[in-house]
């Protein structure tokens, strides 16, 4: 097996076995979506108007939940040092770990979102755009999050700090992502995807640079 695939497989396996990050994110997502009608009242028109923003915000927050463990576990048990000295460049290691985070968080959230969208009375013809928008946008959440996770490495209670550092950087993805459910979805979807590609190209280098400083 190729070294990159081996690392990806290990991280996905660990995330699934450690029992929780995926299930936690999904349950959190579900709870937020269930709570919104309780706060705004059951008016179907209000819910329909709120649905795109609410779904995206909930997905953003659910993604944040498990970000603090992205490098922390490997940092604490010495695996990060060993990985840094492996034949894979640190940038590739970062990208693969962020990809594993997306597979175990962003992807399941995307797949369950259409079901929850029905609870918010989102028009059925918008569901496919919700799915496409999340599919295009959530990888950016994991890859931007990697920068925050690297910056807060080794801090106690770094989880909260990751949110403060990362959420402002999520703003463009949130704006364009939620617009994919508006009347002209295609430009918003294209911009969401473009943003993700930009982040995918930039984040591994920034994150690897921060990790090198953290490992000193």
């Amino acid at each position, binding site marked *: *097996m*190729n*070294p990159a*695939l*081996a*690392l990806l*497989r*290990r991280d996905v*396996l*660990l995330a699934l*076995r*450690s029992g929780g990050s995926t299930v936690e994110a999904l349950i959190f997502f579900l709870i937020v979506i269930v709570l919104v009608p309780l706060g705004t009242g059951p008016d179907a028109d209000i819910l329909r108007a709120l649905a795109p923003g609410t779904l995206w915000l909930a997905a953003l927050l659910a993604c944040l939940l498990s970000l603090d463990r992205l490098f922390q*576990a490997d940092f*604490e*048990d*010495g*695996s990060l*040092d*060993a*990985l*840094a*000295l*492996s*034949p*894979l*460049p640190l940038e590739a290691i970062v990208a693969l770990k962020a990809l594993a985070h997306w597979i175990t968080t962003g992807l399941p959230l995307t797949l369950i979102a259409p079901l929850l969208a029905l609870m918010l009375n989102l028009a059925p013809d918008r569901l496919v755009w919700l799915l496409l928008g999340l599919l295009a946008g959530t990888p950016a959440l994991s890859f931007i999050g990697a920068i925050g996770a690297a910056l807060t490495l080794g801090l106690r209670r770094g989880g909260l700090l990751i949110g403060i550092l990362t959420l402002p950087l999520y703003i463009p993805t949130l704006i364009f992502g939620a617009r994919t459910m508006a009347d002209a979805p295609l430009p918003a979807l294209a911009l969401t995807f473009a943003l993700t590609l930009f982040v995918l190209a930039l984040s591994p280098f920034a994150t690897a640079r921060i990790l*090198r400083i953290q*490992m*000193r």
Partner: protein
Amino acid sequence: MGLVLHNLVCRRGGRLILSDVSFVVPAGGALVLRGPNGVGKTTLLRSLAGLIPIAGGTARLFDTSLGPEAEGVALSGHLDAVKPGLTVAETLAFWARLYGTDMAPALQAFGLAPLRARAAGRLSAGQKRRLGLARLALSGARLWLMDEPTVSLDTDGVAEVTALLERHLAMGGIAVISTHLSLPLAAETLTLRAPGVDTRPDPFLTGFDA
């Protein structure tokens, strides 16, 4: 010409930890680092691994200079780099795939074969250490940097580490080992001293024997 250090200077967080460290270890040779706690043994090993930038002097391994992204170096630190959620066989298979080597010899070398299906989280401290050290055998690296490898190992474990090291050295490898326990291994010893501390007797205190 193996591993050559010339006037190496190491800083950590701006503080001078080591200065003017020079030594030569030929291919097939081992060097044991000694010195009191906090003198910089770990810093030296991490500098050679390229994790801490070298502040001055040169470190060369054969034809390449050591530093960030240097190839052919493996480090085993205080921590075992073992994931509690993976079994012994999965751990070794992962490292073998990452390094592009074969896991079978490592599984045999440390008596890990009977434990292969056990989760690493359920291993004893000594068994975890063995699993952590087995990674070096998989790395295919020519330079092994070992930080206190024998901690929490039993006598059989120490013998196995020694045997592993001897095989590595016999194949032309090099090892730099920091340890407080004696390894039954033919190796040079380097005792590190803290830099900038004047060890001459204080002239004002000569004659006093309080």
